[in-house]
């Protein structure tokens, strides 16, 4: 079971390796559960927090803006009220009849006005043409009837046109904001009352506005110019704020009595919430701004609160989650441990879980499974043991078989070694005391190899092979062609004498025979035997079958090997023969070209030779004529005798010239004949001179070739041989060939014998046979065997060393005599004594042969 665990661990490693790319951290079940719980709780809390914070933020913003708006509104109202108040105060002096009252009265009214309206610093009356009639100031002495002309100034023109005119704000003494208010009088051709109003009061109103800690208000006019601001320096610098988004928005929508601004940046650069309210009469706008941080302070505190709640929720969820998970995971863990122990082979282990849920069921299943595994494991062990025994047995047999095969392959061609190995191994492996291989030899089976038999048995069996028809197990197996087992040989009554004797000497009781089959035929029997009655199992018989097959293979190998060897030898021989034949062909080719050369030379010599001969005989005639003339001439005796003597010597010399010329001519003729040139037609010719000529030619040829050659020539020529119609040069060729063969054979015998008394003899005979002529050529040479004689006329067959003979001579001779002349060429020989060739030529052979060929 250990290997199972290993496998599992290994599998896990593989799994981890294969997931390596995604590298997922391993996490316990408890961890996962706790994480899920915490995740869920925190998700809910976070969503809740975000929603409530969003709502709180919006609300806080709205509240802040509302407060600011209110402040702005009230500031706007107060400024408005202030201006309206001043305007109505001025109204005192603007009645229609006011211009007609007396100057003192007017002055009085102005003083009263100044008294009642402390904000007015200076007041003046412009008459209907814009000339200043009266001017009262808190700072300067009164001016009455100054007649200063203001007709072209705005304060006059605009007031006349619009009834009321408010000037832009301006500053006196560097810091006090002022505004001119001009009011036209009622009635026709009105004058105008102009009041210079100190706006410090407006300032005070604006500066007094405080929102939260840092929030404040400021006022801009229609053009975005700062009119009032807690920081006076900004106002004095006449800052234009129209570029600020909140100011721009308020300017574009001045009609909205109290618009709520979105967050924007303040002059200081902080995020601010701004509310605005317009002062309708003056076209001014009051803006109240509060830093956003301040406005949203409540929101932040609520955020902190929510976060705290979230943290608390997470903590609680984590605690509760891990508690729950632990509770669930502990039994699973126990289950896992139990399974691991089961896996590691501890089958007695049982898992105890009392949770009352599915996990407990699972544990129970595990336990029952473990019980079953334990049971099957126990039976498996028994089976494994049994199988191991079988396998060991098989292994032992395989090893032995392999050993046998090794021996066989090592000694492929030593059948005895192979057989002995086979019988020894078979008897060992099959638990048989005796084993034998019998091979069929003729009609009986003889022992080829045996093991465990006594020498007496072996000796007897060798002397008495088992005949095919015997009743022995061997013979039965052979005839059945399949394994035959005899449980008890003694129990068989049908045994013949020989078999009984075998049994007696061998002492076996149970035996089994396996046939050695080659292509369905029994070539032997493999027999196993035991001295006690104990049958062989099927398995043992199967095993012997293998051994029997090996024996057949070994036999077959040897047979094939021998076949191959024989074939190789044959091929080698053919190759050698071919090589020799090739050499001969080359030689023949050389001879042929030599023949052509010879013919050419012979022709060239022949013509001059003719002249030599002709002139020699002519000169002889002339010498004879000269002698006649000398005889008739009257010369002195001595002179005559001297001349005659010279002529006689000259004639003798000319005879010699003619004689040697004829000799040379004869040689040339023979050369031409031999080269198969010259006259190639058949004609009747005397056979004896032809034979003699051939003999001479051959003899001189041989002498020329080997100077120390000698042979005794004997001739027995029939004078009645007469003429035969033949191709003379062809027959000469045959004769030359046969004669030189005879010279060769006799010379060879002489050199073999190394006997100085031995005389080589060549005999030529001719005989008249009536319609044909017989020529015999006999030598006392080495002779030829019957075997050689069979092949002697085959082309390229020769007994001479390569290069010496063409192997064509006798073949061509045979063709010439038999085919060309219709004759016969026979040979008879006694090796070491003689060889005789017999030629029989019909007298009119060529005609017959030509006729035969035509027909």
């Amino acid at each position: 079971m250990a290997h199972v665990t290993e496998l599992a661990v290994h599998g896990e490693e593989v799994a981890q390796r294969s997931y390596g790319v995604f590298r997922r951290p391993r996490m316990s079940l408890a961890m996962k559960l706790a994480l899920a719980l915490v995740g869920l709780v925190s998700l809910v809390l976070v969503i809740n927090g975000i929603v409530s914070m969003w709502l709180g933020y919006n609300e806080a913003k709205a509240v802040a803006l509302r407060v600011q708006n209110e402040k702005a509104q009230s500031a706007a109202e107060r400024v408005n009220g202030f201006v309206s108040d001043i305007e109505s105060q001025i109204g005192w002096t603007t009645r229609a009849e006011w211009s007609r009252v007396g100057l003192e009265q007017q002055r009085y009214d102005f003083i009263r006005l100044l008294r009642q309206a402390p904000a007015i610093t200076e007041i003046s009356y412009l008459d209907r043409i814009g000339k200043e009639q009266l001017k009262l100031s808190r700072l300067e002495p009164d001016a009455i009837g100054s007649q200063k002309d203001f007709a072209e100034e705005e304060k006059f023109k605009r007031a006349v046109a619009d009834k009321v005119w408010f000037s832009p704000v301006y500053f006196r003494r560097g810091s006090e904001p002022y505004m001119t208010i001009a009011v036209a009088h009622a009635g026709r051709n009105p004058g105008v009352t102009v009041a210079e109003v100190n706006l410090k009061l407006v300032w005070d109103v604006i500066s007094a506005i405080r929102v939260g800690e840092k929030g404040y208000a400021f006022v801009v006019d229609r053009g975005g110019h700062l009119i009032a601001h807690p920081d006076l320096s900004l106002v004095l610098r006449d800052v234009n704020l129209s570029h600020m988004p909140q100011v721009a928005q308020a300017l574009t929508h001045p009609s909205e009595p109290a618009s709520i601004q979105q967050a924007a940046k303040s002059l200081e650069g902080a995020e601010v919430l701004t509310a605005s309210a317009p002062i309708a009469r003056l076209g001014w706008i009051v803006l109240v701004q509060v830093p956003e941080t301040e406005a949203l302070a409540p929101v932040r505190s609520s955020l902190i609160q929510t976060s705290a709640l979230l943290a608390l929720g997470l903590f609680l969820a984590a605690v509760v989650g891990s508690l729950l998970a632990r509770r669930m995971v502990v039994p699973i863990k126990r289950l896992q441990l139990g399974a691991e122990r089961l896996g590691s082979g501890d089958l007695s282990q049982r898992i105890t879980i009392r949770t009352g849920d599915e996990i407990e069921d699972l544990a129970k299943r595990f336990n029952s499974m473990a019980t079953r595994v334990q049971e099957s494991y126990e039976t498996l062990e028994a089976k494994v043991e049994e199988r191991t025994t079988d396998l060991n047995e098989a292994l032992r047999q395989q090893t032995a078989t392999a050993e046998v095969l090794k021996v066989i392959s090592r000694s492929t061609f030593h059948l005895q070694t192979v057989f002995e190995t086979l019988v020894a191994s078979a008897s060992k492996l099959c638990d048989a005391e005796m084993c034998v291989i019998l091979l069929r030899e003729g009609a009986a089976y003889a022992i080829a190899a045996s093991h465990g038999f006594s020498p007496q048995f072996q000796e007897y069996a060798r002397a008495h092979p088992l005949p095919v028809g015997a009743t022995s197990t061997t013979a039965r197996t052979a005839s059945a062609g399949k394994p035959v087992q005899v449980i008890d040989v003694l129990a068989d009554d049908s045994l013949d004498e020989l078999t009984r004797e075998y049994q007696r000497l061998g002492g076996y009781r149970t035996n089994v025979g396996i046939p050695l089959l080659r292509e369905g035929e029994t070539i032997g029997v493999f027999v196993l035997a035991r001295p006690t009655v104990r049958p062989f199992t099927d398995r043992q018989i199967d095993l012997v079958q293998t051994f029997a097959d090996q024996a057949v293979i070994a036999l077959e190998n040897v047979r094939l090997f021998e076949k191959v060897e024989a074939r190789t030898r044959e091929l080698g021989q053919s190759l050698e023969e071919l090589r020799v034949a090739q050499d001969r062909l080359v030689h023949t080719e050389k001879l042929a070209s030599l023949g052509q050369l010879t013919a050419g030379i012979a022709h060239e010599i022949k013509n001059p030779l003719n002249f030599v001969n002709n002139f020699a005989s002519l000169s002889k005639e002339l010498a004879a004529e000269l002698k006649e003339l000398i005889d008739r001439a009257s010369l002195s005796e001595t002179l005559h005798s001297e001349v005659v003597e010279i002529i006689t010597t000259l004639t003798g010399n000319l005879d010699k010239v003619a004689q040697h010329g004829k000799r040379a001519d004869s040689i040339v003729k023979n050369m031409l004949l031999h080269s198969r040139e010259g006259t190639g037609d058949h004609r009747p010719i005397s056979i004896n001179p032809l034979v003699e000529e051939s003999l001479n030619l051959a003899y001189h040829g041989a002498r020329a070739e080997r100077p120390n050659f000698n042979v005794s020539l004997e001739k027995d020529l029939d004078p009645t041989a007469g003429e035969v119609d033949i191709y003379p040069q062809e027959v000469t060729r045959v004769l030359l060939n046969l004669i030189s063969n005879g010279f060769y054979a006799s010379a060879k015998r002489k050199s073999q014998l190394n006997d100085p008394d031995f005389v080589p003899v060549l005999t030529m005979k001719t005989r008249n046979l009536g319609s044909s002529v017989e020529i015999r050529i006999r030598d006392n040479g080495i002779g030829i065997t019957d075997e050689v004689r069979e092949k002697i006329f085959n082309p390229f067959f020769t007994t001479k060393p390569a290069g010496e003979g063409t192997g064509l001579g006798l073949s061509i001779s045979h063709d010439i005599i038999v085919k060309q002349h219709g004759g016969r060429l026979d040979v008879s020989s006694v090796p070491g004594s003689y060889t005789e060739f017999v030629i029989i030529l019909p007298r009119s052979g060529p005609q017959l042969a030509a006729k035969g060929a035509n027909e």
Partner: protein
Amino acid sequence: MSVLVLVVDDELDVGDLFRQQFRRELRAGLFVMEFAYSAPEALARITLPSDVNLILLLSDINMPGMTGLELLPKVREIRPDVPVVMITAYGDADTRARALQAGAAGFLTKPIDFKLLREGITERLSSFQNSASD
């Protein structure tokens, strides 16, 4: 009017040989012998008008340029009345057959058998004289 035997052979010594062999006949004025050393020369000789009667033409076969066998039909054409005898060192059947087929009156192999030739000439001479006297 003398009779003429023309011998055609490229060997110069043939002239001497023939003249010496037939010295008696020539001395007796039985016939005249002339020699041509090539086939064209022979043709020129027989084409020319002559005061001699050509009774026989002996020609070698093996000659450089035009051979005797080539000469034979031309002579037969110009002088069908003159017998032509071929002389050659190649006495093979084929050459002999070709020569006879082309109209040769005889065929002699070298070395020339002068006895035979003398007989032939005598015979030809007598038959000519017979026909002339008739």
